[in-house]
């Protein structure tokens, strides 16, 4: 059974600081996703990572994938309040997604 583990599960950050969320998974996968979810809302796709060494950046967020280590990271640079949300990684195997537990990110002044 595929296991996907994120850490930390709760992250309280000051504005302007950097931090990294980690996503470990237990078996080979097709692709890895990062999603953002605001309270009561749907899943907003942030990144899709397809291959080993893939790195994608959008604004203050950067995601990377190491398929050998079965690890993905979501790096936050110079956090701002608008980034406060829950972030999920999800691992795809034959199209089916298995989600991590989510990281609740709170950015405060």
């Amino acid at each position: 059974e595929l296991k996907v583990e994120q850490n930390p599960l709760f992250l309280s950050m000051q504005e302007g600081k950097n931090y990294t969320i980690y996503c470990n998974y237990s078996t080979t996968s097709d692709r890895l996703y990062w999603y953002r979810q605001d309270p009561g809302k749907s899943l907003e796709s942030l990144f899709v990572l397809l291959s080993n060494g893939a790195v994608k950046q959008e604004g203050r967020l950067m995601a990377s994938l190491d398929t050998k280590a079965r690890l993905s990271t979501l790096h936050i640079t110079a956090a701002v309040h608008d980034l406060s949300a829950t972030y999920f990684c999800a691992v795809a195997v034959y199209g089916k997604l298995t989600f991590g537990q989510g990281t609740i990110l709170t950015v405060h002044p």
Partner: protein
Amino acid sequence: EPEVTQTPSHQVTQMGQEVILRCVPISNHLYFYWYRQILGQKVEFLVSFYNNEISEKSEIFDDQFSVERPDGSNFTLKIRSTKLEDSAMYFCASSVSGELFFGEGSRLTVL
């Protein structure tokens, strides 16, 4: 931009009642999924559907659940006799080449 649409956005029902959640996937997509998220928890896979049949289902997807694609456009999730623990957000997703696109979700509250 094409999107997955779901109705209703919120449904309140009494325990034991039947509920049908509807989804209109993106038109050229071939694979369809239902996921659910209990409040404050992670998103869980329920079922995948391809070529008019279930391709995979999770342990959560028991005999109380069913899916169908009645008219070639809608993709429905039926819960025959709802339980309190069915209260959750239900997300539909579709794909054509691996990347999933999620709908806005249907919030089900069972009283």
